[in-house]
């Protein structure tokens, strides 16, 4: 079991279950190439819009994995009809936390920057090889492998991170009481299924996607599928076209393979992907 973060015991157990699944059922585990280097992985999430059919298996897989209450979504899909009949198009855009790297200057994503409970403690990230990397923890924080996480025990329920995220990727968890203020709710967001990833299996939505439209892996591993796709589609060079709200300078680690220009078309139509929008997965 990873010592990388103070997981709740419940989640650790679920993670162990996921591990058992990976081993017994022969699921493709995340590449272990990083183990050879003692470097933290650099997780990236790619959504292949060529493959996404808007089926919502990811949305439901996430609800099932995380017990997300009604009204909140850590993973959602947006539909958008564009164009004029008969040249009408419909596009699907799966959404989740961008797990931003943060801007070039300080490397801190906006949600973490605004958290009053960050930075707090000092922590160690242990690489698969056993090398220790120090980093700062808090109610919300970023691990050396790039995961932007939160810890309800340290959360005061102030909601600043929700406001700070330009994508609206964070929301209140109305069934969760914040760890430090029992009058407030805690927050919910995508964790890249850290409890699974730390145990060597891909996030639940990635595992469940029938079309393999969601790909997760380590950019530090040149043989990983994400590395190959990043290279093939020039995703790192073309962040302005392949990520959401590039002007916000948050440097997302969530990329879209988008040969039909769906991001642009959706943005032009109606969807702004901004925090004012409630994240509600709706088929219209």
């Amino acid at each position, binding site marked *: 079991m990873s010592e990388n973060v103070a997981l709740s*015991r*419940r989640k650790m*157990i*679920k993670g*162990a*279950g996921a591990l*058992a*699944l990976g081993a*017994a*059922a*022969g*699921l493709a585990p995340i590449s272990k190439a990083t183990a050879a280097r003692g470097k933290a992985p650099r997780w990236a999430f790619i959504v*292949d819009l*060529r*493959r996404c*059919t*808007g*089926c*919502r*298996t990811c*949305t*439901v*897989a996430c*609800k*099932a*994995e995380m017990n997300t*209450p*009604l*009204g909140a979504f850590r993973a959602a899909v947006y539909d958008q*009809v564009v*164009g*004029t*009949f*008969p040249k*009408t*198009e*419909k*596009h*699907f855009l799966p959404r989740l936390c961008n797990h931003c790297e943060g801007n070039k200057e300080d490397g801190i994503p906006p949600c973490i920057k605004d958290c009053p409970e960050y930075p707090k403690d000092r922590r160690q990230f242990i690489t698969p090889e056993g090398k220790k990397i120090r980093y700062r923890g808090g109610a919300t924080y970023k691990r050396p492998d790039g995961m932007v996480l939160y810890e309800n025990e340290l959360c005061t329920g102030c909601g600043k991170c929700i406001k700070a995220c330009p994508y609206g990727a964070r929301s209140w968890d*109305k*069934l969760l009481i914040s760890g430090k203020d029992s009058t407030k709710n805690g927050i919910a967001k995508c964790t890249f299924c850290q409890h699974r990833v730390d145990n060597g299996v891909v996030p639940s939505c990635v*595992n*469940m*996607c*029938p*079309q*393999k*439209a969601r790909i997760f892996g380590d950019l530090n591993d040149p043989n990983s599928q994400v590395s190959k796709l990043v290279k093939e589609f020039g995703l790192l060079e073309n962040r302005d076209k392949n990520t959401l709200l590039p002007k916000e300078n948050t440097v997302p680690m969530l990329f879209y393979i988008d040969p039909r220009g769906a991001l642009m078309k959706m943005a032009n139509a109606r969807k702004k992907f901004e925090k004012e929008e409630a994240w*509600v*997965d*709706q*088929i*219209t």
Partner: protein
Amino acid sequence: MKRDISRRDLIKLGAASAAVMATGKVGGSSALAGTVDLAAGGKDFSPQTGAERKMIPSACWSCVTRDSMIGFVEDGRLVKLEGNPNSIRGRGKICSKGASGINQLYDPDRILYPMKRVGKRGEGKWKRISWDEALTDLAARLKKLRDEGHPEKFMFHYGRMKASSSKIIKSVFLANYGTKTIGNHTSICEGAKWTAQELTWGKHYDNWDFDNTKFVLNFGSGVLEAHTNHIPTCQRLGDAMVDRGVKMYTFDVRLSNTAAKSTEWLPVKPGTDGAIALAMCNVIMQAGLYDKEFFKFIRATKDPNASTAAKVAALKSHLAQYTPEWAEKVSTVPAAKIKSLALEFAKTKPACVISYRGAVAHYHGADTERAVQMLAAITGNIDNPGGRCRAVGAKWKYPKGPKKKPKAKALKIAQGFPGTIAYPTHGANHQVLKMIKDGRAGRPEVYMWYCYTPVYANGECQENIDILKDESLIPFTVCVNAYYDESAALADMILPNPSYLEWWDYEDMVSPTQVPEYYIRQPLVKPLGESRDFKDVVCDLANRMGFPLGFNSAEEFVKMSCEKTPAVKAAGGFEYMKKHGVYHDPKAKPKYYGYKKAVKPDALKKDGVIFDKATGVYWNWHKSKAKSEAEAKEKGYTKTKNAYKGYIGQEIGGKVYAGFKPDKVNKSGYFEVYSELLEMKKFPALPSYVPIPEHKKMSANDLILTTYKVPVHIHSRSANCKWLTEIYHDNPAMINTRTAKRLGIKDGDKIKVKSEAGEITTTANVTEAVVPGVVAISHHVGHWEYGRYASGKKSPLAAGDDSDFKLKWWTKKGVHPNWIIPNKPDPISGQQRWMDTVVKVRKA
């Protein structure tokens, strides 16, 4: 009562309670056994201790695809469902509906005990009864009918009942009871497609070989979002399109997700897909792009022995009337597009033409499917790698029950009104209630339905309610269900079935790889409450009526089947299947071109085998209803009842081939583009376009109502899944912007949609994603029962019932279109005509 209890009260109450309890029999059996062990008490009760996840392979049942899956069980509680990675069909995947199955298992509105109605039918007053009471009552009613010589007055009507469920309930229990008054739901699904395939290549189902195809033409299938073999096919199609650049063109009334992901969406007027397919056939024949080799196996003329040249000439001549220009006028799809697609389809080998309800749920829908089959056949894309293949599924052997079965009888109410449907090979069950009301074909005394909701799933909901409610028409109604739906509300007795996550089955759904996969469904948890698998219940009923079936539970049946089925037995039988869930022979080769196999001469020499000159069919008359060889020969293969059951092979050019073996009708072993059977019933023998009569009489402002499915719901049975209903709970009517403008309707307006069957009030979704002249309404929501999430009833009882329900943020529940869709059949197949109702739409 007063607010507080005092200590004095406590003592008094305690003493009084003691007196009550002292009799020792007031309170029923206690739930707990043993005594409190102080050594064990007062310790850490943390819920975290020892929680381990068990993985149990099983199979989904949300839709008919029935994917293999794995359930994760923690503390005896199912916590998650995922695909089974070892399945060659699903390759470790399930869909959103499958993943939500857990919502069904633990639906707080589940029925956990047998219930009996009190008061009038449909009044909503119920009393719990024990299983013994329920089955004593039911067995007495059924036994009486049987003893009186009228077992057919017990009608059993199912929605989904496949593989071992079908075998246990239908082939063993009902057969031994003696009723053939059995209804299904195929006519409200895809009956026209099935009948058409039976008329052409014999079997009802097809597999689309996306792994090997290079081009896909799609007539009205939502293959990427809601197909009958969804997960296995959709992922392979996705791979084909993205990894290999395979193009797909989709004809649909609506920009479905499938249409949206296609190379191009070709909007089409409802009910005109057949015109396009015929025009394409015409283009291909004229261009000489047909597959000469396959023509050998095609019957295209009255004369089965016609030469390929004669067949080609006959088709060319018949198709000449269907020019692309004509098809453009009929369908609105540009003639140039029809032409270019026809040529591309014919030139790209292999190519796959697919079709589903969009194409067939119409008047003459079966003919549309025949035209599509012709398109595949003339280009040689039949049963070949990359084409449209005959389905391959597991072939289980199973215990068949008592050897001596009574001669079963049937009320003729499941095939539509006499003389109105040519070949209702899968029934016209949306007309069952109408026929019961009519009464001329008799009425059941006991009407039982299983995994079916006659009220909601068919058209004309109000009529369904009125008939089902009428105790003078149907004296006794029994519903087998885990949930209280619109039909359960009209039952006299409810038998609580478990959810599919709590029962046994062996499974056999079609494999996309043409290699059969054997798999099972096993309980992930024990059935909740007193719910009891209906398959176990029929064993009990049979025992009570004095004809034991030879097994006492579904588990025993599945176990026996595992041992009887050679491939499964060799793999390790029941124990192997429980552990792995799935089995396929790793050395098996995909099955293609079965029709080309030569029939061994020995098979033709067996007793009873005769040659039918008129068709070129070798058949064994013993297996038909003919009484003598002379009679069989005189009537001939085509006209002898059940002759198809004796089919051996087809003679073509002096050789006898396995051919396209018939399944439900006396077709020859040819791929019958020319259908003598239809000709006998006064329908065109070659696939033809017959316009929808009602559409010819439409006035300028009339629209055509069509229905559709969304990716996150099953037809009628998933609205109790909160994760799905949260995503899709409202179904505003899609109307094209131009049409809406003409009618003075704006997006979000309340509108009234009126047909000959009734009127609904719904909301307009003014959009560019549907063809003009159409109103498209999905058919999953608009429930008025089926639990708190489906019915939208914020009743005082349900309100605040639980923490998550309080967060239910939506208030809409949609409007069911079936209220206004008449229950009318396609005259060839009996298919319910979902997609061609003429309506008037106006602002409310």
